[in-house]
């Protein structure tokens, strides 16, 4: 018999899917005539429909942010540390919606779903969707769920970019924007890492220009390398040193090209386990979406201008050892908000976990997150009463 699920978990959740038939014109100029979005919800929507929180996922995330799909599930959703009863995103108080973004590979319309025009999987023909496109599709999801206004929209990394875009595009629909380990755009170094990922995928002999489904194969070598690179850059030097040091897998070095060090073994394992969990075309699309995000671009590179019209309140959080989305980048967001006299608080969490920190239950991080969310919930309940 499976172990009982932890009491601070939302428990077993079943995803829902909604079909959208109103065409969505994308930034790239192409139009999706119809599409599906898969999502999960946790907690209960109050009568005033004022306690809804939208979760935006990052690069390899999906709609399964919390809870378990069955009691046999070994692993909960990707943000179990922050979502659940009594947690910062307290499902006793909030109604939480988490979706898989367009172009994803976990049930929403994306490269691995059927293109109705051809009756074949979209593959590389799936249009590149941007953060703005996602926000548009999420706004339509909000309409269908009858949620006029989110009390908070929350996301880390690429998810934080969506939160920022929401605040810009739909100021009247968001009360609180929580942006964690994110940036106003990617640095050249970050775009560089993404390009290495893309090259690893695209040069894999099994990639077949993205048509690998038809060849019933996956570019597993490329996926592995891409994930390994990702893993290294999402951790910090310190974290890797602490976790592996120069520890050997066997007693002594082997003078060969197989695994000598534990870190190699770990990275290979991470790479391999990713191959069957994720889709290469989605991976490519997500990296491009990251690269393209730059709300200041329309304003001559001036982020303060881009954020002029936002009306939500902001909580911005960064982590000291995160070098892919460094505290400096979060400070740029904070500065642009301060320039406009917006309501913002900023915490820089001391953590050695690198970019991954936003998914890790670091006490100080969760305390600050929790303090903020409690105020949000208190306010809603005060108005309700």
């Amino acid at each position: 018999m499976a172990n009982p699920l932890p009491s601070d978990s939302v428990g077993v959740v079943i995803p829902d899917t909604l079909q959208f038939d109103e065409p969505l014109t994308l930034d790239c100029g192409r139009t999706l005539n119809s599409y599906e979005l898969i999502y999960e919800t946790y907690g209960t929507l109050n009568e005033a429909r004022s306690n809804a929180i939208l979760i935006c996922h990052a690069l390899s995330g999906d709609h399964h942010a919390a809870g378990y799909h069955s009691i046999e599930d070994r692993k909960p959703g990707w943000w179990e540390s922050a979502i659940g009863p009594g947690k910062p995103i307290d499902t006793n108080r909030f109604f939480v919606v988490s979706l898989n973004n367009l172009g994803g590979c976990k049930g929403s319309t994306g490269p691995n779903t059927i293109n109705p025009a051809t009756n074949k999987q979209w593959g590389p023909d799936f249009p590149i969707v941007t953060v703005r496109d996602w926000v548009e599709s999420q706004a339509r999801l909000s309409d269908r769920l009858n949620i006029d206004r989110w009390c908070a929209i929350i996301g880390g990394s690429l998810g934080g970019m969506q939160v920022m875009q929401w605040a810009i595009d739909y100021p009247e629909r968001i009360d609180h924007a929580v942006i964690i380990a994110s940036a106003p755009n990617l640095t050249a170094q970050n775009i560089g890492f993404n390009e290495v990922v893309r090259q690893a995928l695209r040069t894999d002999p099994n990639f077949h220009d993205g048509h690998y489904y038809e060849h019933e194969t996956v570019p597993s070598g490329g996926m592995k390398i891409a994930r390994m690179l990702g893993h290294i850059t999402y951790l910090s030097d310190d974290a890797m040193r602490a976790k592996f040091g120069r520890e050997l897998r066997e007693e002594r070095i082997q003078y060969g090209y197989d695994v000598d060090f534990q870190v190699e073994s770990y990275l290979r394992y991470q790479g391999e386990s990713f191959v069957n969990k994720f889709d290469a075309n989605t991976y490519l699309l997500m990296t491009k979406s990251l690269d393209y995000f730059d709300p200041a671009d329309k304003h001559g590179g001036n982020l303060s201008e881009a954020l002029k019209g936002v009306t939500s309140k902001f909580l911005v959080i960064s982590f000291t050892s995160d070098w892919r989305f460094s505290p400096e980048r979060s400070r740029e967001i904070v500065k642009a908000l301060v320039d406009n006299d917006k309501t913002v608080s900023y915490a820089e969490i001391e953590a050695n976990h690198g970019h991954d920190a936003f998914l890790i239950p670091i006490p100080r991080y969760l305390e600050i997150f929790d303090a903020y969310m409690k105020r949000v919930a208190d306010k809603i309940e005060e108005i309700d009463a």
Partner: protein
Amino acid sequence: MSLLRPDLDIISEWIAPNSRVLDLGCGDGTLLDSLQRQRNVDGYGLEIDPDNIEACIKKGVNVIQSDLDAGLSDYFNDESFDYVVMTQTLQAMNYPSRLLKEMLRVGKEGIVTFPNFGHWKSRLQIAIGGHMPVSRSLPNEWFNTPNIHLCTLNDFETLCERLDIVILERQVVDVSHRNRFIMNLWPNLLGEIAIYRFKCGVTI
């Protein structure tokens, strides 16, 4: 500390309603919280200590985690605040004079409070006791004090003169009570905590 400290009380009176305030080293957000409620002030606090960040967030005070010694240029444009306040923090800074100038770059007026090292008890402890003063306003010993740049009222005023800073108002209080009349006669001797409001001098 739940009661408004005496220095904070005086500062509240000095700050015009509806103004924009930056509080450097805002602690648990007590001052900004009370200014927001009583004076409809808006603004931000800067703080480095994570416990205080949490306390500010709990109060609904805008707080930005940052190191004051790193300066204010990361966030704040020239003259973007009506007041820049720094309570009981100046003496713990690595570069107090640089920070004073920064305060007046960012704000139209500055307000600081600091423990007066010229208070008679401090003087006595050095002169008679022969040791670094430990008092209600300076509770730490020399080896564990964060207060690395202590000064007297006279010292502060000399520095202001040098930096072309014009002092608009001065008050002295003791740590438990408000200002007593006699303190105004010999502020540098009898004031435990000094409170100044100042602005940039007009350069000719």
